């Protein structure tokens, strides 16, 4: 490829990177919460995001609801789904070796994806609500991505505010620091686990709802989001919640830069090499070992 790279292109890449980065941060925050509180990598996180996207799609196509108004509905539906999953299956592997939790959530993930294929078929579906871009000087801002950015920013901010200032949020952080001490302080750890799983699923659902307006959705869209979210929390430091924010931005930028300088196929390789390097050099993430 002999494409001349201009400063305007770099600027555009940075804009696109930040716009998608916040979305990554929000979805990955869910995975980070589950990992921090329950020490489980939830492989079904991406498929839960897919269910959120389908919830929005059906509310839009069947009832003609404004897709952005369905975001809270998707979140509520998936919150309940997350709590039910935790209550019935996931709580059984909280203290088990990581193989058990990885496989269990993988089993859930296969069941969700296949169930969605049976129920919704594998056809690509799109929520064609808003298209086009706002142009500002040399830069283009895709409308749906900007709106997703704003939503994700508010929701992520809200989640941080919740974790920081409310009693429940503090209980979640306490449980992720030390489950035993949290129990001694009278925190119902089982309830916190359910709440965390529900909250994480709701964040994934918000991601899915917003994505459904940007690109076409299909039952297998979720798996890549599990991997990306994991990459984000490794970049930021597992169990380090502000780190997820930074990691999401970084991943967004790296992906866009990689697609500018390399082909899209190789950007996955770049992401992987980065993952292994960060794990080896700074296993506690770029922000260091501080928890919560």
């Amino acid at each position, binding site marked *: 490829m002999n494409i001349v790279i201009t400063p305007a292109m770099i600027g555009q890449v940075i804009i696109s990177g930040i716009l998608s980065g916040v979305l990554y941060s929000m979805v990955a925050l869910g995975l980070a919460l589950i990992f921090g509180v329950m020490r489980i990598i939830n492989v079904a996180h991406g498929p839960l995001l897919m269910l959120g996207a389908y919830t929005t799609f059906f509310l839009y196509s069947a009832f003609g609801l404004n897709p952005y108004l369905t975001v809270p509905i998707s979140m509520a539906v998936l919150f309940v789904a997350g709590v039910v999953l935790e209550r019935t*299956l996931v709580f059984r592997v909280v203290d088990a070796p990581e*193989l*058990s939790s*990885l*496989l269990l959530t993988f089993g859930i993930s296969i069941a969700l994806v296949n169930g969605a294929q*049976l129920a919704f078929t594998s056809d690509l579906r799109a929520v064609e609500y808003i298209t086009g871009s706002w142009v500002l000087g040399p830069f283009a801002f895709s409308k749906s991505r900007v709106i997703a950015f704003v939503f994700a920013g508010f929701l992520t901010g809200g989640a941080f505010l919740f974790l920081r200032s409310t009693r429940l949020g503090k209980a979640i952080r306490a449980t992720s620091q030390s489950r035993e001490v949290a129990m001694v302080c009278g925190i119902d750890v089982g309830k916190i686990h359910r709440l965390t799983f529900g909250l994480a699923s709701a964040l994934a659902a918000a991601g899915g709802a917003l994505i459904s307006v940007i690109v076409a959705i299909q039952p297998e869209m979720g798996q890549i989001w599990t991997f990306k979210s994991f990459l984000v929390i490794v970049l930021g430091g597992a169990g380090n919640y502000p780190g997820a924010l930074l990691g999401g931005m970084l991943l967004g930028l790296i992906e866009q830069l990689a697609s500018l300088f390399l082909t899209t196929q190789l950007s996955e390789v770049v992401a*992987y090499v980065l*993952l*292994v390097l960060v794990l080896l050099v700074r296993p506690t993430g770029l922000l260091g070992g501080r928890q919560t």
Partner: protein
Amino acid sequence: MRPAVLAALVLVLVALACYPAVGTGYGLRSVLQAFMWIALAGSWNLISGLTGYVSFGHVAFFGAGAYTAGILIASAGWSWPIATLAAGAAAGVLALAIGGPCLRLKGPYFAIAMLGLNEVLRALVSYFEGLTGGGNGLSMPTLDATVPIYYAMGVTALAVTFGARLIIGSRFGLRLMTIREDEVAAEAMGIPTFRHKLVAFLLSAIGPGIAGALTARDQGYIEPLSVFPLATTITMIVMTLFGGKGTVWGPVLGAVVLFVAQEMVWARYPYIHPLLFGAIIVAVVLAMPRGILGLLQLKYRLPRTV
């Protein structure tokens, strides 16, 4: 081993060796696949069952072996037995190269790094189209070699199982299991843990590499999506767990039982097959994490090398 058990084993082996003379094409292909699953599950067991390092992307070695053999056969014109050996060696080299950094990672990080490795190999194979045919796949010259491949796969399965028997009965195997129980304590006892893990990882990669090469030759056509599926990794893990991880015969038992079950479900309910597969995974993890042989070991005081 008791004489009765030994006799039964020899009988089964003789029966399997004579099977191509009487079996149908479908039957032969099915037994061939059962051999493949035994080799894959047994190999996964060597690294993950013994050391506790969960390789969540073991199919990467299968795919690497398939592509090594595929390229050597299609482009360099090698005969398939030699290409198969080369594929085993290539998978071993890949294991050494990847194990170097990745075996220093702990717990879920190793698991996800291996998962990523598989995705990366698939991306690389798609990218280097000149060599691999990219997404169009790679075709090999037609050749009817099902019977020789049947024997080669059978020998591979046998070698993996016999190798596991030797390792589990040896001091090397004991050291690997020490790493599984407590790596820091193993290190403190003077076990060079990293080197042991690396050797176990190397051994666990060769079987899948050979199985991949044989499968590629048997099918005559490979493409990135068909040789790097995550589902294959999960299947070998679930088979090993079902039979009993860390045992010699667990992977064999799990592979045979689940493969037969899968074939019967496949034939009848193709649509809900993955859904059932997901349910089986959940059931195995929740109901029998030690596997059949693990439960029997607890109950009847079987020898460690069962």
